[in-house]
């Protein structure tokens, strides 16, 4: 076999290696591109599956699949264009190694039926430059740039899929308003209390009505009310009638409230120092409540309360409806009723506020009277902006960047008038006492822990 033929065969062999590398790189690039496309599509569908409606998911899913199909077709078309023949490989080698089209010309020479006498010169030139066009030099093994895109798409997918494993990382906990949190805590307390009673062998007919535990018909409100009284700053009233005015804030479960509630209620009331109860009635806070808002209002509880809670609230609503219907919302009557209430109930703290609040309730709440609310809707505060603005001669700037748990700022405290001047027959609130633990509750807890 002539030396020229052998030489051309050697060149072809090397070109085949180079061609294989180039084509492998093209396939690798295609795979990464397709992978990127698919991963991104999966990520998109994942997000849609969790956040979009079925119709949106279907629509975007179809579009995504179509885009994937088009992208795949385009990628394959590009691969077909990039797929190297021997001639194309020779051109690439010529260009990358600056061989001045010698390899391509040599392949042409090989294909000729009548070879040029200059072919041997060309072959010699190609071999003299062989160090330039080693396959590993011209096409070294490297990762295509599209691999970075693939990795990025995987990161996107991991980011999207992360909430499934660690919801707290991506989905912030739902913001609980002070009242909701408080109410839930309150409800949990009551449930725990009931559970403790069951565990300790208490009678099974113990119920929790509106946050008040009763055992066998015995109203535990008085004993229960003593516990949060320290927090609420109001002494408990054991003989409070069940159908009485619940707006007085004497309800033991109402004793706990987030400070944000008090602040919000003050804003709603135009900074008049009026705190609002769970049923929309308002009252002036006790002096000790001014210094410590915690426990001034009853949080509207979205937590588990039981059917008795609703029943109890309905009773209160009925009583308030009667009162509201009988009393038009005019200032003279309200002040008159306040005076009457003060004389009827000389208990410090809460009673005056309760009557004051009950008188204002109809005016500060929305158009819908409180008595028309359905059971279970007591948590909502349908306020009209006009009512708020009308009741608030001085509006406060929104307290941006402050959470609801923060205490009101100094300027708000200054703007809010202090305790309204007491009348001649008014008695200031009693100082705050630490609440005593109810014997029943203490006995139950002790029994349980002794048994263990």
């Amino acid at each position, binding site marked *: 076999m002539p030396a020229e033929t052998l030489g051309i065969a050697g060149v072809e062999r090397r070109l085949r290696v180079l061609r294989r590398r180039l084509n492998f790189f093209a396939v690798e690039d295609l795979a990464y591109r397709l992978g990127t496309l698919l991963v991104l599509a999966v990520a998109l569908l994942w997000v849609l599956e969790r956040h979009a409606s079925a119709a949106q998911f279907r629509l975007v899913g179809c579009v995504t699949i179509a885009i994937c199909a088009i992208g795949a077709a385009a990628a394959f078309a590009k691969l077909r264009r990039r797929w190297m023949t021997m*001639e194309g490989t020779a*051109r690439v080698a010529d260009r990358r190694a600056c061989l001045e*089209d*010698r390899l391509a010309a*040599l392949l042409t020479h090989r294909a000729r039926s009548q070879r040029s*006498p200059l072919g041997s010169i*060309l072959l010699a030139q190609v071999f003299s430059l062989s160090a330039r066009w080693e396959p590993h030099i011209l096409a070294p093994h490297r990762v295509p740039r599209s691999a970075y895109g693939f990795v990025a798409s995987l990161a996107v997918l991991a980011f999207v899929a992360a909430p499934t494993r660690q919801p707290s990382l991506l989905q912030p906990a739902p913001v609980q308003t002070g009242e909701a949190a408080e109410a839930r805590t309150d409800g949990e307390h009551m449930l725990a209390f009931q559970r403790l009673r069951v565990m300790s062998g208490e009678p099974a007919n113990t119920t929790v009505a509106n946050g008040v535990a009763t055992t066998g018909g015995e109203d535990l409100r008085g004993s229960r009310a003593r516990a949060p009284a320290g927090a609420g700053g109001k002494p408990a009233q054991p003989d409070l009638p069940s159908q009485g005015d619940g707006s007085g804030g004497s309800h033991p479960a109402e004793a706990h409230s987030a400070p944000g509630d008090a602040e919000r209620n003050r804003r709603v009331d135009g900074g008049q120092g009026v705190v609002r109860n769970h049923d929309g009635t308002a009252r002036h806070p006790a002096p000790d409540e001014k210094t410590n808002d915690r426990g001034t209002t009853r949080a509207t509880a979205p937590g588990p309360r039981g059917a008795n809670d609703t029943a109890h609230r309905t009773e209160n609503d009925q009583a308030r409806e009667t009162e509201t219907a009988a009393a038009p919302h005019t200032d003279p009557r309200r002040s008159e009723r306040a005076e009457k209430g003060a004389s009827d109930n000389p208990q410090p703290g809460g009673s005056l506020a309760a009557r004051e609040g009950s008188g204002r309730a109809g005016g500060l709440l929305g158009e819908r009277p409180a008595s028309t609310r359905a059971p279970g809707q007591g948590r909502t505060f349908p306020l009209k902006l006009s009512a708020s603005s009308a009741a608030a001669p001085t509006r406060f700037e929104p307290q941006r960047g402050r959470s609801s748990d923060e205490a009101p700022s100094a300027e708000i405290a200054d703007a809010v008038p202090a305790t309204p001047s007491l009348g001649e027959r008014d008695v200031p609130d009693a100082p705050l006492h630490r609440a005593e633990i109810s014997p029943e509750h203490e006995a139950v807890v002790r029994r349980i822990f002794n048994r263990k």
Partner: protein
Amino acid sequence: MTSQSPRALVDDFRHTFEHIRTELGRVIVGHQSVIEEILIAFFAGGHVLIEGVPGTGKTLIVRTLAQVLNLSFSRIQFTVDLMPADITGTRMVIERDGRREVSFYRGPVFAHVLLADEINRATPKTQSALLEAMAELQVTAAGETYRLSPPFFVLATLNPIEMEGTYPLPEAQLDRFLLKVVLPYPDSKAMQRIIGSTTAAETPKVNAVFDAANAASRVEELKTLVREVLVAPHLEEYAAALVRATIPAGSKFVPAETAVLPADDFINRYVAFGSSPRGGQALLLGAKVRALLAGRVNVTYEDIDRIAVSALNHRLVLNFAAHADGIDPRYLIERLLHAAKRFHR
């Protein structure tokens, strides 16, 4: 091809070329690029149209070249009353030994190197007399065909001024020339050397490169070697694309296909007719000679680009708008080459 090794042939070509150029340089002052292009056309087997103002040495270049190559040389001064038979030859009644017989009297076209001086002063009929000789190396007179002995090399000069009484060359005639070179005015130093050497008592002498006996065969050998130079398919495609790009898009002779190179607006606006396939042949043949001169046996893009202006500029037929705007076909081709740079990748 002789029994010489291919490497020796290539080296011989380069050496011969340089030798001819050196000998021409003894007489011709400056114009190195023009001389190189003339020699490229000569070894490529084509003909050259030289355009230049009078007195720039057109005739001197051709005559000196014939002396250097040691080939037969003819010169025809084209005038208005020149007839085709004055070029090709004619049948004459010659009395020999008391007998009259008709024999063909060969014209000046029967030479290796033919200088057609001021070719545009003859009528188109006379100009066309060269067509057959240039294209097919043969002359037909009175029904008989006479072969021209190779090499046959026509150098025609063209006077761009004094246009009154001249006849523009037909496009078919122009297309027969492989290259058209423009002979500019010499620069100051070259001018000084020209007037000094031509007015001295001693005129420069040139030495013949080839022996008179084998000059023609040697030249043919070298021309054959040029045709052996290898061209990759993509370079042939590039040359074809360049030629195709000179054709305006609105031409009714354009085939319905997508051009490889984008259509240039200037071509569409100023060109009436583009280059013929002979332009592509000129590109590749000229590029092959350039490749050999560079010591390569294969053509590159640069070889084609460097010969493109000379090979294509006389093949573009410009329209009235181009003449009105003073557009030079060389400018159009340079634009094309600039746009075709991306084809190199």
